[in-house]
Each structure stands twice: as structure tokens, then as C-alpha cells.
């Protein structure tokens, strides 16, 4: 191939790629929320468009640098001229609106973790997502649910909506139990040991934290997309208002997860101009009266409102006022304290809701009656009520005792009564067994 020919080919390929790139931008813009002008450009699908993008940017750099050296030129042109032969996939992807349409079932499980939040999502493209992980005492059930419902040992998107213990308590154990592909948290810290412990676990796992903030895209596969709509730069002494709120869309179906966002954050989301309409909303802050203004719920106008709270919780969640606002708007309320784990399935068109339990178990109370506070007793109360039937596990050589699901039990697993185990062994810091 002589220099003249390769230059011609180079220019032609460049034109074709630039056109397809421009097309990508158009398509992405169409998917961006009509009402909201994002400050961050919509991220193209990370997997599908990588190849095309990489090629384009390489050529642009060459041109800018003015490196029309014949050797480089022919190398680049040869590489590109080879491409069509082995990249029939690429051709399909680039020509069909840039996104390969995703089909299949989206499954969203609002796990019964007592008072707290944990939402496990199996995406129709085979990826998975976990929003929060309940209190540390619930980590075992969260991990078990994921293992029972996904053959893979990975979680693609792990989101800690905000640093309160009822949302992040179980997260360290989750990170230890699975391979985490990406970790997302709002840009805010907390003083607690629970939060510090989570950071330590993240560090030990070699993970880095992606900042969850409005305008950021969690993923975008065209007809399957998740973006953050909060926090939006709020300053508050209440961590709930830093909650990462996520809007997940699959074709025309929309799912909104509010974390513990309170009224201030709801106002901020509306002021930012987001289209918050959703078919299913995870109501903010366990149905507390601090959240869910009528104005906001009217804008969301969902078919289903999910409240994740513990049976017999001491905080009065959900609040009667909040329930009244929701039910007066004719919205179907699903509560984990009444129904246990609640599962929504979406085939890309229709949404169905399944619940299993009719009798939800109340967790050991984490409060003591007003007026009779004795700190020592209060702390130990939850364990005592369960002690009779608790079995934990030890290994042949270890010095710690573990809960059933701990990864340290792969070599040996000897069952033992908690009473006996706690006298001879220390609790494992990874699986956080009963004490």
C-alpha cells in the first residue's frame, strides 16, 4: 500500500468514524433527561463503545499533533483497514443506534433487613447491584440472599447511600464476601467506628470510592440506565440529606431509590428539574415524617411505594402522616415490616410485585424504655433474647468463632453453642457473628 492510498483510506476511515461518533452523541442526548441539562456529558455505554471511541480519539490525537509521518500513517491505516474483517460485532453495534438493546428480566428485591435498607438488583444484562446492606447484624441474611439468587461471586455496583449504620453496617461483610466491581458513596464522612471499619475494608480490598452525586451516571446501556439525582451539593448537619438517590430506567419503566433523603433533598431534586416520575419508588427514610412531601410524591406519582422498615421499630416508622399522603394519592404501599422481602420483576414492559412472608419476624429491640436506661443491659439485650438457639462455627486451628456463611470456614467447620464459643474464642471481625 503506497503512501497516497493509505492517506486516502485514512481520511475516509476518519470521516466514517467521526460521523459515527457524532451519531453517538446525538443518541446519548436523546436518552438524557429532557427536563434536566446535565453538567456531566452522558457517558456512552462503557462496554459497547469502547473500541470505536478508542480508535477515534487515537486519530484525533494524531491529527492534532500533526504527525503525518508516513510510517505512523500506514500503521494506523493498516490497523483500521484490518478492523472490518474481524469486527463484525463492532459493525452491528455502531450501525444500530450505538446500543445493543437489552432484553430480559430486571429483578429488584427490597430485602427484609429489619430496621434499615438493603436492595439487591439483578439487571437484565447479567450485572448486579446492591444499594445499602442494612445493620451489621443483618449482613448474613443479605449475603445469603445474594448467594441464593446469583451464581456469580461479584457485585457490579455497590452503593452506600449514606453513612448511617442501618445502611452501611452490613457492607464490610458484603465486600469481604463478594468481588466488588465498583463502589459508590456520597462525598461525606461519619465519625463512627462502623464507617471507619467500612473504609478499612474498602482499603484492604483495593477498591476506590466513586463519588455518588447528582448528574453522575452509574451505568448507561441505552435502554437500561441508572443515574444519581442526589445529593446535589446540599450542606446539612443531617447525613440523611446527603443520601445518594438513584433513578433506574429500563425501557419505559422507572424505579426511584431515595435512600434516607429528607424533605430538603426532595426540594433540591425538584429544583434541579429532574423528571422524578417513577413506577416504583423506595420511599425516603423508612417512611418517616421527615421525608415524602405531598409535592414530591405527587411528582413521582408511582404505582408502588416501598417502605423498608423493621417490624415494631422504636422510631414510629412509617409515620401515619406519610402513609396518609401516599395512600390518599391511590398509591399501592408495600412494606418490608409487613411483607418481608418484596420483589419487583420487570420484563421490559410489565412490572409485577411478589411477596413471600405473611408473618414478618420482629428483630430484637434496639431500644430501651424511656426512664429505665441502664447502658450495660441495653447493649446486651439483643443477644440475650436469642442466646438459647444460637449455633456458631469454629475451625480446627483458628482462634475466632464465625457465623455460618463466613469465608474462613472453607477449611474446617465445627459447630458449637454460642455460650461455649464465646468463652473460648473471639468473634470473627469479618462475618461479625452473634455475641
Amino acid at each position: 500500500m503506497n503512501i497516497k492510498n493509505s492517506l486516502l483510506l485514512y481520511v475516509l476511515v476518519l470521516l466514517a468514524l467521526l460521523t459515527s461518533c457524532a451519531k453517538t452523541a446525538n443518541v446519548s442526548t436523546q436518552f438524557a433527561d429532557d427536563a434536566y441539562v446535565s453538567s456531566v456529558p452522558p457517558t456512552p455505554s462503557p462496554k459497547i463503545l469502547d473500541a470505536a471511541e478508542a480508535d477515534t480519539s487515537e486519530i484525533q490525537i494524531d491529527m492534532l499533533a500533526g504527525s503525518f509521518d508516513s510510517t505512523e500513517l500506514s500503521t494506523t491505516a493498516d490497523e483500521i483497514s484490518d478492523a472490518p474483517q474481524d469486527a463484525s460485532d463492532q459493525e452491528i453495534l455502531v450501525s444500530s443506534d450505538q446500543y445493543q438493546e437489552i432484553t430480559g428480566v430486571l429483578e429488584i428485591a427490597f430485602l427484609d433487613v429489619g430496621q434499615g435498607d438493603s436492595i439487591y438488583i439483578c439487571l437484565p444484562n447479567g450485572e448486579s447491584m446492591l444499594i445499602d446492606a442494612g445493620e451489621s447484624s443483618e449482613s448474613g441474611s443479605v449475603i445469603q440472599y445474594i448467594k441464593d439468587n446469583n451464581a456469580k461471586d461479584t457485585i457490579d455496583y455497590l452503593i452506600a447511600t449514606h453513612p448511617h449504620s442501618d445502611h452501611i453496617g452490613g457492607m464490610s461483610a458484603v465486600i469481604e464476601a463478594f468481588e466488588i466491581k465498583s463502589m459508590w458513596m456520597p462525598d461525606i464522612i461519619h465519625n463512627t467506628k462502623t464507617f471507619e471499619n467500612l473504609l478499612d475494608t474498602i482499603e484492604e480490598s483495593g477498591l476506590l470510592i466513586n463519588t455518588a452525586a447528582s448528574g453522575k451516571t452509574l451505568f448507561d446501556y441505552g435502554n437500561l440506565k441508572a443515574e444519581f439525582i442526589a445529593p446535589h451539593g446540599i450542606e446539612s448537619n443531617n447525613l440523611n440529606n446527603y443520601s445518594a438517590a438513584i433513578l433506574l430506567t429500563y425501557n419505559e419503566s422507572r424505579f426511584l431509590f431515595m435512600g434516607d433523603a429528607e424533605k430538603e433533598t426532595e426540594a433540591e431534586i425538584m429544583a434541579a428539574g429532574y423528571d422524578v416520575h417513577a413506577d416504583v419508588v423506595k420511599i425516603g427514610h423508612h417512611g418517616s415524617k421527615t421525608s415524602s412531601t405531598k409535592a414530591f410524591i405527587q411528582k413521582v406519582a408511582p404505582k408502588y411505594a416501598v417502605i423498608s422498615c423493621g417490624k415494631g421499630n422504636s422510631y414510629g416508622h412509617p409515620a401515619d402522616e406519610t402513609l396518609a399522603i401516599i395512600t390518599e394519592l391511590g398509591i399501592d404501599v408495600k412494606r418490608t415490616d409487613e411483607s418481608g422481602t418484596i420483589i419487583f420483576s420487570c420484563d421490559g414492559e410489565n412490572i409485577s410485585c411478589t411477596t413471600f412472608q405473611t408473618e414478618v419476624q420482629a428483630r430484637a429491640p434496639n431500644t430501651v424504655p424511656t426512664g429505665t436506661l441502664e447502658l450495660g443491659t441495653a447493649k446486651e439485650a439483643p443477644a440475650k433474647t436469642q442466646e438459647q438457639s444460637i449455633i456458631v462455627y469454629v475451625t480446627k486451628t483458628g482462634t475466632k468463632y464465625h457465623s455460618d456463611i463466613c469465608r474462613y470456614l472453607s477449611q474446617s467447620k465445627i459447630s458449637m453453642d454460642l455460650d461455649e464459643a464465646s468463652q473460648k474464642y473471639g468473634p470473627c471481625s469479618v462475618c461479625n457473628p452473634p455475641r
Partner: protein
Amino acid sequence: MQVIIDRIEGDQAVIEFTDMTTVAVPLSLFPDAKEGDVYRISKDEREANKRKNNIQDKFDRLKKKD
């Protein structure tokens, strides 16, 4: 003993102990508490003895002499 305020839920404070367990207690125990505040709870034996002596005195004063 050290406790950290994890969060405020209405009129209750959720406090975290050093072993990362949490418990909800009346917020009135921790006036002006904010999330992330650290409290030290310690036994005050001097105050206990002082109170014991004072109350014993009071009681003795009020006791009917036989």
C-alpha cells in the same frame, strides 16, 4: 466508655459503642447531640459517695428515734 452518635431519629439518639453495636436511647440523655459527636461515659465514685453520705444523713435526720 465511649459512645458516638450515629444518628438522631426523632426524640431518640442512636448511639454506637466501640464494638460497633448500636442502641437507640432517649435524646434527652445527650442534650445538643449532633451526628458524629463523641461522648465519654464514666463512673463518678466521688459523686456517688457524696450522695450516699448526704442521703444517709437526711434519712437519719428523718428517722423516728425509738
